């Protein structure tokens, strides 16, 4: 594919209706300018510190790795205000929206974490906020719907297609093609048209930057690998970005293998998809032989997406990063295990990353040092997970 804008190798681009191009071009310019503006970056860093609670801890698991030779550190994005890493980049984008004179925010959400983050930013900056959410996701993430509404955000149910994250993005793009004059579309991941994959990465880069500094202080060396879950891929890019140029550090993404990669109920876009155009960029996509987008599946709404950010496609194609599927069942096991062993309830999304790191740890013959991005906390998932996990009552 020949790509003019925001290319990651052959991936990326700005594949949107012509009407959105002036808005995206303006956004790209505003973003470039803001990155070089010390006052903007100071306000961004200040809000991350005082409002969102950065830096987040890097915590060494005490019990989880017993019986293995691995040391696992968790980057505690679950402790960030809002309950997930999403808050980082939302603050960056809302500052940018204000700088561009926008007065209204729209966003899509899957698990509801990005919706909640957008809602808190909308409240903080007094912007009218509307979040599109698939009606299927509204059912399985009801507490997050309520949180958004509590903060004054309008939650719009999306009934089209598979009623999930993909369809919510479609609706947000449709809204934006009529509302761009006063509205910023606060896309929640590193997918989408240029400049989103670059912009969201830069606003999430803080995760890996802190983790790198923290692991050097704690262990005096770089980790052997960093792990993160990949739906659209924003927490993974945030963790990977500062390690990409460190060849000794493996970058490993956990994709949602759902019921298993031998079934059609999964969301493993990089392992099972092929390049195509969905939501504005050329990247791997789950699709049928005619190019119709397939429905993905994951127990975790935040990973239930048939596309992926174009930089992940590039890292996959070049072999710099590896992407491996974790099933619903494996994620549930990790969810339970981390709760039991460390007293930390992870988001189902993050449980995929942890499950993958534990798989590596079990097989390692040598001592290894791993960092797992614990991208969100699991409170939102408790209602959904309850029927799947049988607890021994003591």
């Amino acid at each position, binding site marked *: 594919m*020949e790509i003019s804008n925001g290319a990651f190798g052959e991936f990326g681009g700005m594949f*949107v209706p012509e*009407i959105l191009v002036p808005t995206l071009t303006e956004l790209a310019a505003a973003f470039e300018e803001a990155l070089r503006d010390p006052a903007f970056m100071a306000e961004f860093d200040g809000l991350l510190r005082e409002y969102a609670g950065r830096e987040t801890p890097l915590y060494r698991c005490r019990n989880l790795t017993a019986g293995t030779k691995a040391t696992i550190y968790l980057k505690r994005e679950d402790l960030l205000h809002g309950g997930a890493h999403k808050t980082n980049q939302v603050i960056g984008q809302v500052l940018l929206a204000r700088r561009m004179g926008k007065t209204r925010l729209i966003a899509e959400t899957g698990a509801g974490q990005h919706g909640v983050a957008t809602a808190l930013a909308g409240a903080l900056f007094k912007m009218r906020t509307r979040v599109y959410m698939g009606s299927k996701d509204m059912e399985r993430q009801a507490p997050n719907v309520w949180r958004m509404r509590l903060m004054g955000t309008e939650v719009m149910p999306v009934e089209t*297609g598979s009623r999930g994250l993909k369809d919510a993005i479609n609706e947000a793009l*449709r809204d934006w*093609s009529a509302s761009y004059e006063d509205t910023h579309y606060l896309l929640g991941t590193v997918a989408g048209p240029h400049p989103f994959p670059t912009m969201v990465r830069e606003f999430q880069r803080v995760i890996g930057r802190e983790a790198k500094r923290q692991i050097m202080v704690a262990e005096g060396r770089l980790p052997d690998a960093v792990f993160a879950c990949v739906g659209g891929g924003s927490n993974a890019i945030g963790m990977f970005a500062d390690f990409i140029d460190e060849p000794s550090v493996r970058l490993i993404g956990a994709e949602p293998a759902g019921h298993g990669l031998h079934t059609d109920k999964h969301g493993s876009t990089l392992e099972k998809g092929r390049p195509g155009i969905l939501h504005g960029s050329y990247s791997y996509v789950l699709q049928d032989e005619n*190019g119709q987008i397939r429905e993905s599946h994951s127990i975790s709404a935040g990973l239930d997406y048939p596309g992926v950010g174009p930089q992940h496609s590039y890292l996959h194609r070049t072999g710099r990063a590896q992407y491996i599927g974790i099933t619903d069942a494996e994620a549930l096991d990790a969810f339970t295990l981390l709760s039991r062993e460390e007293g930390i309830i992870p988001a189902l999304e993050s449980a995929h990353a942890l499950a993958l790191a534990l798989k590596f740890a079990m097989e390692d013959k040598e001592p290894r040092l791993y960092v797992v991005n614990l991208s969100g906390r699991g409170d939102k998932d408790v209602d959904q997970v309850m029927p799947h996990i049988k607890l021994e009552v003591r």
Partner: protein
Amino acid sequence: MSGSEKKKGRYARLFARLGEAGEGAFIPFVMLGDPNEGESEAIIETLIESGADALELGMPFSDPIADGPVIQTAANRALEAGITPDDCFRIAANIRSRHEDIPMGLLVYANLLIGRGPESFYERASASGLDSVLVADVPTVEASAFARHALASGIDPVFIVPPNASDDKIREIAGLTKGYAYFLGRAGVTGADREMAAPVSSRVELLKRAGSPPVVIGFGISRPLHVRAAIESGAAGAIAGSATVAIIAENLGDPEKTREEVARFVRVMKSGTRRLG
């Protein structure tokens, strides 16, 4: 018809003929395969019999981000009927076999071209008798490879001129678009619920001065007075998508009534293309 006439292309011949007659073009849009292959082909025949000057035909896609609810639902009906791109090309080829002169444009989303490979997609479009292809999510900035393959296959690549296009962008599109220029009557996605916006004549004029092929206005066109307003703003024609598709949606299960209503709609809309006095 002389060889050079034929070489001019169906769009050029149509607009020349209508221009001499002092008329604009009425171009209905339907989704190929909506509500199924057989009825879709019959509906398209009815469009032609009732006076459609050209056809804009959609290829159903699962995630049509430029379309409002009416056309999204039409795509879903076609997909649920099992319609594939091959079926769409077959319907187009059947229509072409019976109607040598009517210009036929295809409206499609990029991923349907990627799967087959743009080169082979345009080849197939050309072999099916289509004249133009508009890729809804490929803007000019990403269009060079698409346009090159289209032209190599004898397909006119059509580009959209949005209402927020700068003067420079309008001049660029005037040079890139072939067959016709698709001018958006308003912002947003397809749909007849919001009418086309106020005067567009200065933008249409700018396109023409920059050497654009004839300008056709779409989005928000649902009544003859919209068609008349489009023609009076200097456009050579008007496209009605959602309003046409809505007739199919309202008469599902009654193919005969669908065709009657579609025929009535085309005749009344066509009447808006004739200049008064």
